[in-house]
């Protein structure tokens, strides 16, 4: 094609000790739709946030129209003509659609009063291109898919040369996605360059001109879409060397084939349906799938943290009545939240109080008083077993590093001697050392007879740690992989609905593609 409008040269970005991007190169040509692919954590969002001025690169340069630029803030990115449609919706729910669409220009304007009529007229003109949404309505009243469309409309009003779409179709219906594709083609025809981030191969192959693949924060390749097949892209996304050591697995033959935990036909009529899971003694079962596929919702449904409409939970063959999380805890079923700070720990309470929270009944004496000596012993015992590095058990959890906080969260679960633990992203955001300690601990727990289910977005973790992996796609079990047929490629195929494994409900299958 023609000269690049935007090039990223040798950009590197660290978060603490973690290298999110290493010498990444990326070139966007004028008037092209350029897909950016990679697994969760490959560095796509970091790269886009650098372009949009949200993050600053540690090294490397950004060249816009032949000139090196520094993008110090999102406002600076906008004035350079770089727009980003966020994956997460960032709108003011109490303001009208029109006010949201023109928020940037409202904050810039100098006149004292708002001209609502003009604002609404102009906003409606933009909005109507996408969907018949009344711009006078409040954003908070709209369903998520409409909010996503408002987010897109907002980006369209910014006079952009480059527009970045971060998984724009994640919350859209097929009809809405079709309209979006038409608009993207229009934008392209007007010379606007588009970066399109998506996990959905069918969309990439329908819409995009070129595709760049990132893996582990490094640049892998850029090709014309016409020269590739979806399989090629998937292969490039996964082809990695294993850099971490995982505890040795135990072949199924050496384990007793006793089922300790089963889920039968679980569904909530909304986010997931017909989920069947069987967990045998000593096994670590992985649950994979894309973000938003319903993995967390299923785990919450199993533990009574989310209402379900169908299905049964069995522990050691006995059916459990689980209506609330307290019921689950009583039955010996605990859940480690993926959101450690938001819903996992009490950051400003002491380590001892965090570890004892699930176990209060056991620590309570006749008079309803807590045995604080026993509480301290419990905390010290787990701190030692899990090697929690801390000042004292009386120190607030907020004083610990991420890895040690996670160990406290796990200790909290172990304190009630559970039969089954569901762990959602057990090693998210913690350093490599603590990560392998936790992996070793999980294997040890599994061998001691506790059922372990690990939900993870990190494929190496899923494959390295688990004996068997179930892949969820759009709220359903898309497939199961045993130890022998477990590869990253197969997980991604199942998760994104590519290739021969049950195309199922994927939005844009080949017969839809134009």
């Amino acid at each position, binding site marked *: 094609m023609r000269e690049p409008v935007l090039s990223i040269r040798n950009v590197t970005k660290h978060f603490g000790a973690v290298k999110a991007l290493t010498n990444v190169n990326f070139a966007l040509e004028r008037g092209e739709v350029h897909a950016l692919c990679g697994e969760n954590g490959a560095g796509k969002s970091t790269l886009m946030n650098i372009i949009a001025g949200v993050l600053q690169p540690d090294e490397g340069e950004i060249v816009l129209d032949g000139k090196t630029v520094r993008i110090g803030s999102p406002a600076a990115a906008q004035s350079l003509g770089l727009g980003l449609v966020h994956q997460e919706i960032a709108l003011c729910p109490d303001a009208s659609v029109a006010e949201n669409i023109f928020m940037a220009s409202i904050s810039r304007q100098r006149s004292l009063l708002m001209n609502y009529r003009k604002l609404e007229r102009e906003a409606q003109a933009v909005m109507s291109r996408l969907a018949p949404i009344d711009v006078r309505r409040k954003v908070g009243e709209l369903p998520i898919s409409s909010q996503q469309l408002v987010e897109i409309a907002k980006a369209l009003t910014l006079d952009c040369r480059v527009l970045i779409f971060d998984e724009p179709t994640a919350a859209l219906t097929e009809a809405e996605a079709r309209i979006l594709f038409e608009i993207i083609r229009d934008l392209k025809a007007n010379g606007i360059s588009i970066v399109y981030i998506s996990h959905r191969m069918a969309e990439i192959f329908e819409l995009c001109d070129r595709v760049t693949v990132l893996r582990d924060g490094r640049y892998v390749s850029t090709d014309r879409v016409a020269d590739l097949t979806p399989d090629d892209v998937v292969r490039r996304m996964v082809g990695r060397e294993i850099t971490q050591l995982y505890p040795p697995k135990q072949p199924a033959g050496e384990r007793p084939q006793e089922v300790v935990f089963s889920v039968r036909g679980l569904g909530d009529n909304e986010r997931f349906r017909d989920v069947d899971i069987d967990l045998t003694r000593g096994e670590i079962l992985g649950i994979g799938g894309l973000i938003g596929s319903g993995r967390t919702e299923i785990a919450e449904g199993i533990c009574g943290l989310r209402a379900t409409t169908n299905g049964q939970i069995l522990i050691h063959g006995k059916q459990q009545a689980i209506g609330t999380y307290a019921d689950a805890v009583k039955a010996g079923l605990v859940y480690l939240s993926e959101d450690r700070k938001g819903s996992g720990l009490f950051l400003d309470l002491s380590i001892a109080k965090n570890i004892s929270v*699930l176990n209060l009944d056991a620590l309570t004496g006749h008079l309803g*008083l807590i045995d*604080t000596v026993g509480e301290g012993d419990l905390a010290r015992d787990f701190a030692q077993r899990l090697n929690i590095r801390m000042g004292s058990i009386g120190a607030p959890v907020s004083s610990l590093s991420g890895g040690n906080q996670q160990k406290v969260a796990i200790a909290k679960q172990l304190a009630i001697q559970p039969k089954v633990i569901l762990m959602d992203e057990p090693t998210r955001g913690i350093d490599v050392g603590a990560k392998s300690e936790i992996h070793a601990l999980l294997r040890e727990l599994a061998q001691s007879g506790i059922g372990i289910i690990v939900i993870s977005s990190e494929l190496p973790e899923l494959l390295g740690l688990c004996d068997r992996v179930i892949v969820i796609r759009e709220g359903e079990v898309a497939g199961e992989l045993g130890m022998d047929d477990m590869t990253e490629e197969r997980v991604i195929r199942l998760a994104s609905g590519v290739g021969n494994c049950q195309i199922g409900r994927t939005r844009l299958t080949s017969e839809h593609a134009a």
Partner: protein
Amino acid sequence: MLADTLGTKAVRPRSWKRIGSMREAGLIAIILALCVAMSFASPHFLTLGNFRAMLMSFSVEGVVVVGMTILLIVGGIDLSVGSVVCFAMVLSGSLFLAGLDPWSASLTGILASALIGCVMGFFVTVVGLNHFITSLAGMVIVRGLCLIITKGTPLSLFTLPPAFKAVGQGSFHGVPYVIIIFVAVVGIFDFLLRRATALRKVFYTGSNEKAALYSGIRTNHVKFWVTVLCSTLAGVAGVIYMSRFGAATPTFGVGMELNIIAAAVIGGASLNGGSGTILGAILGMALLSVVTSSLVLLNVSVYWQDMIKGCILLAAVSVDHFLNKRKPS
């Protein structure tokens, strides 16, 4: 992730207990310093009579502070306590005037106060309003009830039997019963707050409600009962006031809630929930009381008192904010 690399350095052996006791030691130091300064400034300050008057003046409010502190720890607030104190007072008083014996009348007053707490707890947990708005409405409605019960005029209760008046006015070996009740309530709740499982759940709920819910704690139950407790203790205070004054005024306790919230916050309770101690709140109350007494003895116009108390509150909260910002996140 940034925190991880700093992690090893961030682990400082600064225990939670020490932060708490530091605050209380600081308050005691300030109170003592004020007392020393005042003993030079006024010959009347360092007298048994003045100390007894000060203790008496905050003892009854101290009972209310206990409930408020626990409510603040759970992340709530109650603006209606002043009205509820008055409500218990005028309801018991008018029942007594209607012929009920004073003990039954008082018990009814306390139970009715608890019922007000139940109603507010219902609106907070079932309807889902926040504590501030619910108790603001409660404050106005209950004050209205007081005016309805009394038809706007003070009730004169000089016919109360001496045995009942003794609760508020009498003493045991020179120690007023009011102070004994106060010390007992403070002692019991301070102990329970540290040791009782039920009250531990108050800390969990206030510290991180979602995490508490994810730990199987029924946070709505906790919030409901703490709301009821706060109103009940306000009812107890109202009955003691009735005994002490031998009268019930429908405008009694206007503005009391602010004094009480201020005392708890000066004592270390956070409006965000999750932290606070009874001892701290009582020391906060003592500080305000010493300041008030000092201003009176120094012949400072009463018009200045509120302003000065407000400044103390602002200073205490600012110090808190400053200390919190330096805490590792």
